[in-house]
């Protein structure tokens, strides 16, 4: 084959089909833009994280533990040169002495010097430097707003007060969303004890930041000490560990968004296939002539394949440029989800990959419709009555299909970073496309039937257009439907996730105020305050902190699952290491279901205490009915036997427990209480915590409407990012739609002119177009809605394990919006058909 001929012809041939082939390039561009934007963003993010990792920790090393640092941790700290800053982080109520409300705050009591790397920026700037000078605090701006105070005012925290020196404007490693659950407040470490907040039942993280001396190797120290620290349930973190962890998380995030972007590219591929099909149909004569003049089938095939690939590359370049621009916008929709200051420099490598990907996608999707070109007989140039493409099977089709499937799966796996997810994604796309393909078949069938039904002429004509030879019904339904499906499934899932958490919606009577960490001695007092406020609270639920000491008589190992141990049979993993907060009860509650075993209806008789364990923990621990677990309750061992296994619906703001004891065992153990209430009046809801915090600073009040808002905000941001990517699919779908309209334009112009000659009015012509495209969009939307309900249900049921509710109103939108969009595009593309006189149109068409 002479490459000269192929290239020259490909170039010359493209010139005349600009508009049609432009569609092809645009279809690819949308997908490439999405991918380049996401991958560029992720790649920049990872670079940023790598650059800022040390500033994020602010130190070389950190040790942290859920209890006060033990002997090994102390020994490590003593052995190190360099500087250290102790810290304790906990949640507590803060309030303005003169204010009427209190706010749950994430307090960190921090020693001087930290951070050694990076900086905590405050307003005014000097605030951080003066923190250690006295009873000072530096807080998140949101705390000022919540408490109605300003810089210079004091806030009460436990049994003492701190003066606010300034607000945090920027801290290394800050994820904005983190402060949504509770604003942060930093106080000097030496005044921690003065708060009196770290009594029994307080949940706090104890730790130390360390700046190592010259020549010390953080990784080595961490590796040496990790096993000993783990025995004390302490963790050691290095800059590299943090960076790895973040890098993994960000890669997963990028991979996920990339998959959504990939959908846009695949839809672009469909657009290519559709554009090529039409293109080839119009080029059959040219192909026959070329064959006549002595071009081989392979040469002609090469001409059009080169054309497709070049246009794909052009689309790739355009997409990469758009993607690099969009990449500057992505940080805006991702604000507060990422911990690093972002580089927004263009990611050239990603852009180049995008260009090549565009070319490749165009190539593999063009392959199938192009194969026919090889078989065009030269005789067709000589005789009109010859079928230009002889009938018969073409084994190359199988190869083309295999290549296409392989490409899609490979892309999905690469983008997912995991073959299982990638394969699942590819299969999911396959199912959705199959559904849409079936729907398109139904459209064509219905159109055939309805175009003979006793309808208005314009409707019949419009419907008939859906099934005329060379119609693009399938391509449009696939492309438009997929974008709509994606957006709808997303919206449904988001809605269902939020519905579970709703405590403030209309008609919701779930509790919206939770009070934690109430000491037994404070119980009556707290209830008194609630009663006075006219608030009815649920019966208080006791909580006893405990750890697992042994399972079936075997001491537990604190090693992780991944670590290799001499005795691999020792129980280990998160379920062994974690601290349990268990309760006792004589009945099941609404959020629980007994799966196996029996509940204790009879009073306790002695022997090991009976417990009921949650299914997932039981599985993780590898225990079942009749197995024994020994608990360490504040140093005292308690023998128990599993007599039932429960399923728990965690997706509610209710006190739920992994382990429930039978009554008569834990009553004397150190315990705290939780109570919940429904308070509809916002003023009361903010006043009560203030009152309680003043009297009993250790009691934590959580306004669940605030939590709900924070989670809604987080989900909203995440889904904004996903929706943003999904939008590209819709754009790709619209490009395909526009492309098909453009390709059927000549035919449409001729027909319209003919109809005009026969006396059709412009309104009638438009009605035909509207019927045709609205029907297309309607069917695409309907299928998208059905698929979205299916996908949303499956996600709710199997992934999130929540109730599923379809939102009829939203689904109606999903059906109507594509219909309206399609009709609009149709009318827009046909606008000048009706503006010209019939003669003008006929003359032009004849040229």
């Amino acid at each position, binding site marked *: 084959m002479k490459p*000269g001929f192929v290239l020259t012809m490909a170039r*010359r041939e493209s010139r005349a089909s600009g508009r049609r082939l432009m569609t092809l390039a645009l279809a690819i561009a949308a997908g490439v833009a999405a991918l380049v934007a996401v991958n560029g963003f992720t790649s920049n993010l990872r670079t940023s994280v790598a650059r800022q990792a040390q500033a994020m920790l602010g130190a070389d090393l950190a040790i942290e533990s859920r209890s006060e640092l033990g002997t090994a941790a102390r020994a490590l700290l003593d052995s190190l040169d360099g500087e250290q800053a102790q810290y304790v982080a906990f949640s507590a109520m803060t309030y303005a002495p003169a204010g009427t409300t209190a706010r749950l705050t994430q307090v960190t009591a921090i020693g001087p010097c930290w951070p050694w790397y990076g900086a905590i920026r405050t307003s005014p700037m000097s605030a951080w430097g003066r923190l250690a000078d006295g009873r000072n605090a530096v807080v998140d701006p949101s705390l000022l707003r919540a408490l109605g105070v300003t810089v210079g005012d004091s806030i009460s925290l436990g049994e003492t007060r701190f003066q606010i020196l300034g607000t945090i404007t920027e801290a290394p490693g800050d994820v904005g969303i983190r402060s949504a659950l509770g604003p942060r407040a930093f106080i000097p470490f030496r005044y921690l004890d003065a708060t009196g907040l770290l009594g029994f039942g307080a949940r706090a993280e104890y730790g130390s930041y360390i700046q190592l001396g010259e020549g010390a190797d953080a990784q080595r120290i961490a590796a040496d000490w990790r096993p000993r620290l783990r025995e004390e349930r302490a963790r050691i973190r290095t800059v590299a560990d943090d960076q790895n962890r973040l890098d993994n998380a960000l890669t997963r995030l990028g991979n996920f968004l990339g998959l959504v972007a990939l959908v846009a590219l695949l839809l672009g591929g469909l657009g290519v296939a559709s554009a090529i099909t039409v293109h080839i149909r119009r080029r059959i004569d*040219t192909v026959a*002539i070329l064959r006549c003049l*002595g071009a081989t089938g392979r040469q002609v095939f090469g001409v059009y394949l080169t054309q497709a690939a070049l246009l794909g590359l052009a689309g790739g370049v355009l997409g990469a440029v758009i993607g690099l621009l969009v990449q500057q916008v992505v940080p805006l929709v991702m604000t507060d989800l990422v911990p690093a200051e972002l580089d927004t420099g263009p990611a050239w490598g990603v852009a180049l990959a995008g260009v090549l990907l565009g070319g490749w996608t165009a190539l593999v999707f063009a392959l199938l419709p192009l194969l026919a070109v090889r078989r065009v*007989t030269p005789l067709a140039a000589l*005789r009109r009555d010859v079928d230009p493409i002889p009938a018969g099977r073409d084994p190359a089709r199988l190869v083309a299909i295999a290549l296409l499937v392989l490409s899609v799966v490979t892309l999905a796996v690469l983008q997912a970073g995991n073959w299982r997810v990638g394969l699942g994604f590819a299969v999911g796309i396959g199912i959705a496309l199959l559904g849409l393909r079936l729907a398109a078949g139904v459209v064509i069938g219905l159109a055939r039937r309805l175009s003979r039904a006793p309808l208005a002429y314009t409707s019949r004509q419009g419907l008939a257009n859906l099934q005329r030879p060379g119609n693009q019904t399938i391509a449009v339904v696939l492309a438009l439907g997929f974008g709509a499906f994606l957006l709808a499934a997303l919206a449904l899932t988001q809605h269902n996730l939020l519905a579970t958490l709703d405590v403030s919606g209309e008609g919701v009577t779930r509790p919206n105020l939770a009070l934690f960490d109430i000491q037994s001695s404070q119980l009556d007092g707290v209830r008194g305050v609630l009663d006075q406020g006219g608030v009815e609270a649920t019966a208080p639920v006791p909580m006893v902190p405990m750890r697992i000491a042994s399972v079936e008589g075997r001491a537990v190992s604190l090693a992780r699952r991944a670590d290799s141990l001499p005795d691999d049979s020792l129980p280990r993993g998160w379920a062994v290491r974690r601290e349990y907060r268990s309760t006792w009860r004589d009945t099941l509650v609404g959020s629980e279901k007994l799966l196996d075993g029996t509940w204790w209806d009879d009073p306790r008789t002695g022997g090991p205490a009976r417990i009921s364990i949650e299914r997932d923990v039981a599985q993780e621990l590898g225990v079942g009915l009749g197995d024994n677990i020994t608990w360490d309750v504040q140093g005292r061992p308690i023998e128990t036997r599993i007599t039932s296994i429960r399923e728990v619906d965690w997706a509610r703001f209710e006190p739920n427990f992994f382990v429930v004891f039978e009554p008569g065992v834990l009553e004397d153990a150190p315990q705290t209480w939780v109570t919940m209430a429904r308070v509809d009046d916002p003023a009361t809801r903010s006043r009560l915590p203030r009152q309680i915090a003043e009297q009993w600073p250790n009691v934590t009040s959580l306004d669940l409407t605030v939590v709900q808002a924070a989670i809604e905000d987080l989900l909203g941001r995440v889904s904004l990012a996903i929706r943003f990517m999904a939008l590209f699919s819709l754009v790709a779908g619209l490009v395909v739609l526009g492309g098909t309209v453009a390709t059927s334009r000549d035919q449409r112009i001729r027909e319209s002119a003919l109809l005009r000659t026969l006396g059709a009015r412009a309104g009638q012509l438009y009605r035909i177009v509207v019927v045709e495209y609205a029907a297309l969009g309607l069917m695409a939307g309907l299928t998208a809605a059905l698929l979205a309900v299916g996908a949303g249900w499956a996600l709710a049921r199997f992934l999130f394990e929540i109730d599923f509710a379809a939102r009829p109103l939203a689904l109606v939108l999903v059906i109507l919006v594509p219909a309206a969009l399609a009709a609009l595009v149709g009318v827009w593309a046909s606008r000048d058909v009706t503006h010209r006189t019939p003669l003008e149109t006929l003359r032009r068409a004849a040229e």
Partner: protein
Amino acid sequence: MIECNQLTRTYTSGGRALTVLKDITLRIDAGAFTAIVGPSGSGKTTLLGLLAGLDAPTSGSVTLDGHQLNQLDEDGRARLRAERVGFVFQSFQLIPTLTALENVLVPLELSGEPDVARALGLLSDVGLAGREHHYPSQLSGGEQQRVALARAFVNQPAVLFADEPTGNLDARTGQTIVQLMSELNRKHGTTLVLVTHDPALAALARRTIRLTDGEVVSDTTT
């Protein structure tokens, strides 16, 4: 130059076999100008297609310029066409997306020697100097057919097949085209096979083969 032996072509249409050509045996010498005439449906164009290797016979064989066509595969026949054969069609069959010059260049591009000067020379020979960059749609029917002639001769073919080359042209333009064809024929020594049902056109040929219902009914040389 061209030989065919017991050439038969049968099409199946609607389950019925339809024999369009029956047992044709003939020989056309190099440099000759031969007309194939006959009423519509007599099998003229089918015969032309078979002789040019655009179609495969049901039985029989064709030798073109020393090559047994049925021993060549489709690519082999294409190569032979590219190097040794030129075509002129009733409906011109220019590639609408290429300019006049580019259309003429196609056979040269195919053989990897795009000689622009040569193509321009031929366009000037057919009287189209200055119209090289026009697209087919910007040319009249006669002009289009002249481009097609230039294209047919550009690779100096041994054989030129013309299928009703004047069929879509008015009488005067047709006349010019035929004159051009015979001039080029003389100038290049090309074997010319012309299918037509126009007696005046056929009269220009030295040999006339008449077909009726797929059979040769007369073969006269003047």
